[in-house]
């Protein structure tokens, strides 16, 4: 067990990357202080702790900063070694989970672009996203050969956390797109995965309010559409 330690997390309520770190800390039952950053007016601490990227999330453990959400997740798993484990113990499975996380990573940028553009641009980027999702849906059959289990005994781990940070707010994406993009016909595994995760209390605690999230996306769309000041 760890002795008394100080854990702080600098974040932003709508960031999927921050959501990963918060979810990991909650799943592991780690007490931490959350510091909400105003991204248009970043704190001195944030700039000091993450001089390279100046981004959230930053985990500060006993005064020492760790940046980059995936690096933070691995750090959490290596410091707090009690169950539940975020990554599998077997090296081959670890490599497999890390592979799929690396596969999902660029989809965040693609998803974001889809949600802040319109017309032909949006359609092209959305198609690109959906095709990549087809590949991942197939790949998940190997991860979940017997379908997605309920997350009762086994808590969500590294891959589940990253997946959820991408699709947990899919209802907001549906509203922006004017249609469902995560359909059960095309992505049955993904849909059952999201639904199984939404049954987990810690997961619900970290999911932002969908109307609030939609509001933010609309604001970003407005800014992108209007001529620059």
């Amino acid at each position, binding site marked *: 067990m760890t002795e008394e330690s100080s854990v702080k997390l600098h974040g932003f309520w709508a960031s999927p990357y921050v959501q990963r770190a918060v979810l990991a800390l909650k799943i592991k039952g780690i007490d931490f202080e959350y510091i909400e950053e105003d991204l248009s007016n970043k704190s001195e601490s944030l700039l000091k702790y993450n001089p*390279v990227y100046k981004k959230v999330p930053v985990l500060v*453990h006993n005064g*020492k900063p*760790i*940046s*980059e959400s*995936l*690096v*933070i997740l*691995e*750090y959490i798993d*290596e*410091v707090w070694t009690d169950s539940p484990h975020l990554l599998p113990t077997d*090296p*081959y499975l*670890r*490599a497999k989970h*890390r*592979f799929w996380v*690396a*596969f999902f990573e660029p989809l965040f940028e693609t998803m974001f672009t889809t949600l802040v553009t319109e017309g032909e641009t949006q359609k092209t980027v959305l198609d690109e996203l959906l095709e990549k999702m087809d*590949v991942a849906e197939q*790949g998940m059959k190997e991860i979940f050969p017997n379908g997605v289990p309920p997350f009762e005994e086994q808590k969500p781990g590294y891959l589940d956390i990253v997946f959820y940070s991408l699709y947990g707010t899919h209802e907001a994406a549906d509203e922006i797109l004017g249609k469902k993009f995560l359909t059960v016909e095309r992505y049955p595994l993904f849909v059952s995965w999201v639904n199984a995760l939404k049954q987990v209390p810690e997961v619900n605690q970290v999911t932002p309010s969908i109307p609030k999230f939609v509001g933010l996306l609309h604001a970003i769309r407005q800014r992108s559409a209007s001529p620059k000041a």
Partner: protein
Amino acid sequence: MQEIKVYGVWGSPFSRRVEIALKMKGVEYEFIEEDLENKSDELLMYNPVHKKIPVLVHNGKPVVESSLIMEYIDETWKQNALLPTDPYDRAQVRFWAKFIDDKIMASVGAALLSKGGDISKAKEEMQELLTVLESEITKNKLFGGDKVSFLDIIGLFVAYWVPIVQDILGNHVLTRDKFPGIYEWADVLLDDAFIKKNLPDKDKLIPILRSRFGVKP
């Protein structure tokens, strides 16, 4: 009996990472040279998603992506550890490995190899990123202190391949006078007996890269 295969390409910095990691641990393996214009059925079977090298196949099970393969190697064969033991130090290594692979590598491609686009902007970005890396480097030392470690192996791309590519293309962003720290680290790294023995010979590499970039000799 363990069966270990590495599917790679002789001149690739990525398959060298895997070979160096295995050799540092004294692990024997079979190297299969791929022709990227004519990929083998095995490669396509082992890496159906990306169809890329390197691939490590350990007792029939494939591991892909060079930095992930290196983590796998370190976790499977514990002798001569590549990553530090302390979790905070490991986090720093992973942070900088991502910086090199995600940021520097992309900027090198844009700044040195792009035929169109805003080359001067790309070169500026590469310069900025290298400046960040320069600030991280400690004089006369490797990332692992006095021995070659994970981050040094990842960084070989910058230490060995980038200067060679720059010479071929006549396009120099990483220079000794602008980045003395990076060059000092590279000097120590490239002078290491083991590393020297395991890099593709420059005289053989240059014509291969020349033809890849469509540069006349």
